[in-house]
Every structure is written in C-alpha cells, then in structure tokens.
C-alpha cells in the first residue's frame, strides 16, 4: 500500500507539475486578486526590514489588545449567555448551567466535571453565594490552570527548527505563513520547508506565503519524501546562515499508523543534521471536538509536542478542548490564530481565553 500510495503520489506529481504550469499564469493573477493584502504587507515588510529592538516591548501590548478586540467582535453575538445565572442565587441550576457552558465550549464532560468539582470546594471554603462572583472565580481558576507557561518559541540552534504538525485542514500552512511574517518583521531570516508533499498544491500555497512574508522557500518534487525535503531545507539554512527553519508537514489523521510513523521519521531526521528541533507545534482547529485530545496524545507520541497553536478562534467555536490537552498532556497553548490576515496570529492569553469561554 505504501508502494501504491507512493506510486499514486508520483502520478499525481506528474499531473500536478502539468497543472501547476498550466496554472502559472492563473497564479499570478490570483495573487493580484489579493492585492489589498499585498499592499498591507508591503507596509509591514518595510517596518520589518529595519529591525528595531524596542519593538519587543511594545508588541505584546498590541497583541493582547488584538486578542481582546477580535474576540469581542466574534463574541458579540453570543454575549449574555450567563445572564440567567446572574439573576439568581447559587443553586443546582447554576452548577448545571456552568457545566453546560463548559461542555458547549468543547471542554468535554470529564474536564468540565473536574473543573467544577474544584470550584465547588473553593466556593464552599470561601462561602461564595453570588453567581457573578462564582463565575469570576471560575474564570480566574481556568486562567490559572492555563496560564503561567513559558510561551517563548525556542530559537537555540543553527538553525532552530520549528515543526508544524496536525490533522488535515487545521491551518498548518497558514500558521507558518503568519509566523514567518512575524519573525521576518522581527528581523530574523526564515527558511520555509515545504514538507507537505502530498496535498495538491500545498507547496504552492506555502510558496505564496513565503513571498508575502519575505521568507525563503525550499521545496521538493510533489510526492517526494517529506523528511528529505525538510532535511534539505535545514542544510540549506545552515549553509546560508539562516537561523530559523519552519517546516510544514502534510495533514494526517492520528489513527493512520503509517503516516504517524512517517511523522516520527520526519522528527528524527530533522534533528540529525546541523539543525535543532526546538519546537514541535500541534495545530488544532478551534472547532475541534473531543477528538482533539486523541490528536494531541498520538501526535506527542510520534513527535514530542512542545506546544499547541489554536487556530480559527475568531469564529464562533471556543476551543475548549485545549483545556483537556493542557490538563492531560501538559502541552501549553502558545499561539492563537484569529483571522486570515498576516498579523492575525498572536500569543496565547489565558485570562482572555477564559473570559471568552463564557461570553
């Protein structure tokens, strides 16, 4: 089957080549369609081209604001969810509604129960009788659980290698594009490795992000061995003195053993050359349900995760599954995706996240 699949990939590769050539004209035009974004980028790129040290200080501030503003827009329609809770004293119905809220945020019944059990004890000890105070207490408890982690992405290595993994369609390629833009803006040179050699036009997609962000792209032929593509990218970065490689990988469902073995190999091979794998980031779609925990379990088995990127949190989904992930596997959420724009990737803020769960 591996053979069959490879053969199929090869066939696809040939077809893809054709189609790509055919679409080359198209591609340029499509890019033009994104002219607005490009214009935005041009401005950003200019800022980025003059690396300013002080920017580090001002950036978290703007990021937090962005997180809050964006979530506020997204949540506007859903606010007042707990309004009914506030109008009564704390009773069984209150607890039930809190559980419902957690379950509806995809925290899962198990997590919801354990969170609320702890809250119950604290509420009892502190004699909380006011529902609003109770909700505030719950939010701070959740923020405590989720916060206090080191969210810095590791850059020790020459080059440092960041590996992006996850199931299909969660936004790995887009995340890399945005993060590359951020790093380039911060004055770091970046090589993007097109390790998704399976999905049609995945490398083209990453290539467009490379152009937008000002990073360099290293790609292999469609259907090529992803490990070797990534290895080549690392070697290239090392010889060109580029300090950071971001490696894309094909989306894979965590129950496909052979694909997970492929990922383990990618992880192994990426650490063999001159580079050091400092981050393995699992990208999770905020709309993911309880399966997210299974994803995190299996992906960390194959490629020791160092963090989670929670994408598409600007939608109506609340991404509560990361609570279970962090709780069980102690893998922190490091980044949050809040939109399709280049600068829509921000550092995770536990307090804002907890707040948003109940808006």
């Amino acid at each position, binding site marked *: 089957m591996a053979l*069959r699949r490879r053969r199929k990939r090869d066939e696809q590769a040939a077809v893809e080549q054709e189609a790509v050539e055919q679409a080359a004209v198209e591609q340029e035009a499509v890019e033009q369609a994104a002219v607005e974004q490009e214009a935005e980028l041009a401005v950003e790129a200019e800022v980025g081209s003059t690396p300013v040290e002080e920017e580090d200080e001002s950036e978290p501030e703007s990021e937090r604001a962005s997180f809050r503003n964006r979530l506020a827009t997204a949540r506007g329609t859903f606010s007042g969810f707990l309004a009914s809770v506030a109008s009564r004293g704390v009773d069984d119905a209150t607890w039930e509604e809190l559980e419902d809220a957690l379950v509806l945020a995809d925290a899962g019944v198990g997590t919801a129960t354990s969170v609320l059990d702890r809250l119950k004890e604290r509420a009892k000890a502190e004699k909380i009788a006011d529902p609003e105070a109770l909700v505030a207490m719950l939010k701070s408890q959740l923020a405590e659980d989720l916060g206090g982690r080191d969210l810095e992405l590791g850059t020790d290595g020459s080059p440092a290698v960041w590996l992006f993994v996850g199931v299909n369609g969660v936004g790995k390629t887009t995340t890399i594009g945005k993060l590359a833009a951020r790093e380039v803006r911060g004055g770091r040179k970046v090589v993007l490795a097109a390790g998704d050699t399976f999905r049609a036009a995945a490398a083209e997609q990453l290539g467009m992000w490379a152009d937008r962000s000002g990073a360099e792209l290293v790609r292999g032929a469609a259907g090529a061995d992803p490990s070797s593509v990534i290895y080549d990218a690392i070697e290239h970065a090392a010889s060109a003195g580029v300090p950071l490689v971001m490696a894309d990988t094909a989306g894979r469902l965590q129950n*496909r053993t052979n694909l997970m073995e492929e990922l383990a190999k990618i992880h192994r091979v990426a650490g063999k050359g001159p580079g050091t794998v400092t981050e393995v980031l699992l990208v999770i779609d905020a709309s993911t349900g309880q399966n997210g925990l299974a994803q995190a379990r299996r992906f960390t088995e194959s490629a020791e995760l160092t963090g989670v990127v929670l994408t598409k949190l600007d939608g109506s*989904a609340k991404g509560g599954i990361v609570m279970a992930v962090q709780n069980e596997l102690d893998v922190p959420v490091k980044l949050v995706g809040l939109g399709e724009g280049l600068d829509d990737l921000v550092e995770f803020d536990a307090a804002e996240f907890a707040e948003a769960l109940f808006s």
Partner: protein
Amino acid sequence: MFDSLSNRFEGIFKRWRGLGTLRESDVDEVLREIRLALLEADVNLHVVRGFQERVRQRCVGAEVHKALNPVEQVIKFVHEELIATLGGETLEITHPAKPPTVVLLAGLQGSGKTTNAAKLASWFKQQGRNPMLVGADLRRPAAVEQLRTLGASIGVPVFSEPSDPVKVARLGVAEAVASSRDVVICDTAGRLAIDEEMMEQVGQISDAIEPHYKFLVVDAMTGQDAVTTAESFHAVLALDGVILTKVDGDARGGAALSVKEVVGRPIAFSSTGEKIDEFELFHPDRVASRILGMGDALTLIEKAEQVYEEAEAEAAAAKLLEGEFTLEDFLDQMRQLKKMGSLQDLVGMLPGTPPELRKAEIEDEKIAQVEAIICSMTPQERATPRIVDGSRRQRIASGSGTRPSEVSQLLRQFSEVQRMMKKMGGGKRPGSGRKKPKKGRRGSRVTPPGSQQKKPGKPKLTLPGLEDGEFDLSSLR
C-alpha cells in the same frame, strides 16, 4: 469514525442486556449513560437533550413487545431514534430536465471543500455524468491550483479566473452549458459563520448560479460548534444536505447528528479517506446500526457484489469446502478484497467484530507483501506449499523483498486457514443461514428495521471468512 461511539453503546447495552426487565430507574441510568456517550462523541448538548427526551417518552409509553425483552426494546428505540436523527433516508440525486445540475459547496476553512469537490466530481463521473469543476475560492493561496491538480488527476475540467467569486461561479456555469457538461460543482472559499461579509458573498454566489444542490461540508471532528455553523449556513443558503469529511479518523462523529438535527437535511455523502474514490453516499440506517455495534452488513454485501463475480464466489466456495483451497486462490481472494476498499473499513462493517479488532488498523501494506510473496513462488510451490524448503524460501524472500521468516509466517498462516476451511467444509455448509460470528461476543439480536433483513435477490455470497467471521483478518498482520 462511528466505531468508538459504537463501543460505548456496546458497553452500555452489554451491562443491561442480561436483564429481563427494566425498571424506570434503570431507564434513567441507561439514558444518563447514553447522554454521556453522545456528549463524548461531540453531539451538541441541545441535540442530546432532545434525543434523550424522545427515547424516554417512547420507553415510558411503550407497549410491551412480545418478541423483545425490555432491554432490547430500549435498544430498538435508541436505534430508531438514531436513524431518525441521522436523517432517515439516503439522499437521491436527481437531475433537472435541462442540464447542467449545479452543485454548490460551502463550509468553514479546512473542512475539505476543495478535496471533496473533486471527489464529488469523480463520483458523478462514475455515475456516467460529465462533470465540470469551478474554482471560486480566490482567497486561499493556491486553492485554484489545488483544484486544477485534482481535476487533472480525475480528468475533469476546471474553470476559474482571477476576478470575483460571484462572477467566476456564474461564468463557470455558463462555460458548462457551452461545453455541454451536465454537472457543475462549484468550490467556494472557506468562511466563518460569523463573518457577515463572507456569508453574504456565498449567498450572492448561490443567487447567481441557482444551485440544485447546496451542500455544507462539515469536518467529522467538529465539536459543539457544528450546530452554530450549520444554522448560519442554512439560514443563508437553505442547504440541501451535508458532506461529512474525514470520517476515516477516530472522531466519534457526533457532528453528523447535530448538523442533521439543526438543518433538517440529510447527510448526503461521506468522505472516508485521502484517496479520491474514498467517498460515498451516506446511509443513515446503516450508520445507526454501526453506532449500536450491529455492523454494516448491507454495505459490505453491496461492496462484495460490486467486485466479486458470483461464479467466482461459487467456485471458490466449492474449492474451499473440498479443502482444495490453494495459495493461488488465497491470492485471488486477497485481490478481490483489495478491490472492495481498505481492509480496515471492511472489518468495521462486519457485525459482531470485537472492538479491539475493529480499532486495529489493518495495514494494506501487509497485503501487498503477501501478494509479493505469493507472486514470487512457482506454480508448483503455490499448489503444494509443503515443498518450500530452506533454499526455496530464501529465493522467495529475495524475490519478494521480504525476509525468509516472513515467508514462513505466511505459509504457516495459510496452512492454518486451510485447516480451518477444511473443518468448516466438513461441518455446516456456509450459506445455509447466517451463523453467529465465531469471534463476535454477541450477535445482533435486534433486527434493525429494514436493514439487515433485506437480503439482495442474489444467492448468498460465500466470501470465505467474511460472511462467517471464521477467517481472522488479524492473522494477516
């Protein structure tokens, strides 16, 4: 996908099955367990409440059925409600008198619209149609290239131009008319349900091309939010159905139930793998049976019918029973099996497959290996594997790129199968009625309405091992 949910139900019902009578407190407990199972499967909380309530009311007001004990009756209610929730009937695609049939795909980012546009095109092609694809996702970088690549691989033309999605869609349909294509499938950009501008745009696309079918593409791994998404898209588009993707993952797929409940339209198709042909019409009744651990015998039988020539089957069966089953036949069977799809899927469809086996991933590579080994043997060796000695084994191993130990292992397994087959031949004739699967821990005592009873008009297929569950597929690992 639904397998792990079915494991949960199996666990619940196993505990209660032995009970002859059911008190009201028992019903409550069963319902609580079902609630938990459904929530863990990501069925939306509100949908779960409705489901629970309907089952409870039926339990309370139930007349006692003589043939079923009370527990079985509850299972029957749950099963029927599951079918009802999942959408009852399989969607039948009809085509307008004046072609083309226009299909619009919409959904969140990353749900799989582009891939499934191509899969759907391929499906229509198999139905003898002449589809065309329209790439109206001008937003995601390289989305149109992806569609073109996929289109090229299945021989379906792709229309797109870098202008405006509404215009592309309209021109695409016009192009289909001009080039006498009878089905047009329009891919659109992924959009969030709360992005008003983008939602308005997809409404405009829909108005421009007046699709006959508007499908929402939903990731099977979606959690509680599936309801919000489905509601929003339904409000704008008046959906005709849902395409459920990534069903081959281990998500429990509760989103399917939620979405159906909210939209009131059936799950039309499900995408069951990365390959372009891993895409099929959705059969709610069969899936409901699978959730309850009854297997999906009907789908299996249909699949078998598609690929297994009746005469071949008869001949193979006859040989089997006489104990003349050779490696040659074994290879044949393997190849037939492969045509039916991935082994893992097939095993999941067998009624009464033990959960651990159902979960196990049966690697199709192993089959390729077996094939290679058998193909490296001489006809004589295939007929009489006994003669394979050390040097022959070495030759076969190097010929097939395997290790001698793997050759030995295969031969050992084969002789085991052969021995089993002989035993079967000596005893009851397979095909003389459904036997309880040997490995199954419980047979399906409840008859799901209109599913498993409905036997096709043809003689019963005697696909060795499969129908009778004697051939342990795990031995292939």
